[in-house]
């Protein structure tokens, strides 16, 4: 069976407390302590030699860091990951997005895949509503950009079209179904690529976070740039409309979701840095696999804001 193997809670509870260590993000410690019996350890510290299993519960950043850190250890340990929020799909992805000073470093390889992953639906209870909605935007951006990617195959497109239909049915907000939807979207897009939304997010996240604080995280950027970028894709080529029709996707319903994710004030706050960083954005590997070609002059589409 290929990695990562999906577990359920009973698989996890079969692990021995003696050789299992838990890393948990602070926001869900209380819920986790009532669900799991494992001892919690300090993150990224050397492990006692009896430890064979590392259970990591957190968002995409912690899961990606753990995927890399595990490979650097001298002894083989099983990595079991549990997302505390949906969106990144880090629990099933061979891609790791790491903070590297003021930039994002992306590494990819099957060796980074965790051994096991599972979903604890109870963790949805720890997610504030607004954060949950922005995380849906992250998952939506994986699904739509993967679906439209020039590297996507008809098989991937068909599977991503089904994910998009399921996302439409689920609706935005705090719903534990998003754990599963997000994992499917991420796994499929990792076999194609993402596009300009991610090129913008990777470039602007450090810039906007330095300027305005942590509210400008990856999910917030994806949520706010999904509507403008999809409008740009749609205006630049018939591909967007052709694919929507081919896979029987409801364009109006999708646009309505993207409008719900879009916040005009946030977009306008980010706009000066979008212009300032455009030359960097168009060089980002994700921008270069966008559905349509992103050119130096393409910034004018976003400047004039006609998609709003």
């Amino acid at each position: 069976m290929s990695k990562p193997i999906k577990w359920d809670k009973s698989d996890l509870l079969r692990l021995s407390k003696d050789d299992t260590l838990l890393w948990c993000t602070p926001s869900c410690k209380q819920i986790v302590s009532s669900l799991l019996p494992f001892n919690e350890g300090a993150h990224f510290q050397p492990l006692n030699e009896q430890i064979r299993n590392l259970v990591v519960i957190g968002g995409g950043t912690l899961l990606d860091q753990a995927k890399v850190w595990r490979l650097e250890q001298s002894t083989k340990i099983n990595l079991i990951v549990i997302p505390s929020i949906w969106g990144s799909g880090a629990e099933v992805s061979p891609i790791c997005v790491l903070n590297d000073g003021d930039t994002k470093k992306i590494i990819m390889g099957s060796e980074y895949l965790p051994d096991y992953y599972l979903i604890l639906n109870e963790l949805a209870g720890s997610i504030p509503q607004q954060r949950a909605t922005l995380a849906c935007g992250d998952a939506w951006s994986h699904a739509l950009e993967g679906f439209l990617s020039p590297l996507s195959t008809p098989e991937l497109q068909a599977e991503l079209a089904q994910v998009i239909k399921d996302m439409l049915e689920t609706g935005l907000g705090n719903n534990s179904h998003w754990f599963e939807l997000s994992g499917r979207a991420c796994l499929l897009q990792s076999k194609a690529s993402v596009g300009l939304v991610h090129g913008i997010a990777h470039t602007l996240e450090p810039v906007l976070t330095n300027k305005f604080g942590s509210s400008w995280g990856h999910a917030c950027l994806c949520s706010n740039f999904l509507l403008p970028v999809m409008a740009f894709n749609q205006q630049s080529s018939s591909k967007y409309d052709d694919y929507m029709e081919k896979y029987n996707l409801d364009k109006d319903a999708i646009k309505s979701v993207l409008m719900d994710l879009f916040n005009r004030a946030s977009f306008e706050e980010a706009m000066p840095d979008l212009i300032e960083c455009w030359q960097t954005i168009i060089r980002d590997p994700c921008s270069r696999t966008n559905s349509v070609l992103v050119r130096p002059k393409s910034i004018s589409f976003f400047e004039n804001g006609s998609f709003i």
Partner: protein
Amino acid sequence: MTNKEKLEDLMIDILLIEPEEYSLDLKREDVNSWDSLAVVSIAVGCHETFGYHFDPKEATSINSVQDIINILETKGIDFNE
């Protein structure tokens, strides 16, 4: 705009080079930014500009501007106008 001019415009934008660095003799080995992702962009850009979609074998065989012209000419796109 002639097809030659359209291709020049496209390649300058994809490779992010100055107009004076472009020529019909330009080869992949001459430009650092002509990497595997540029190959994807060339395929996407040629589809948008000339309406022809390179198959994966054609796309990976492209190593020069002349290679692009040669393929497009076999599809009836004229570069001698």
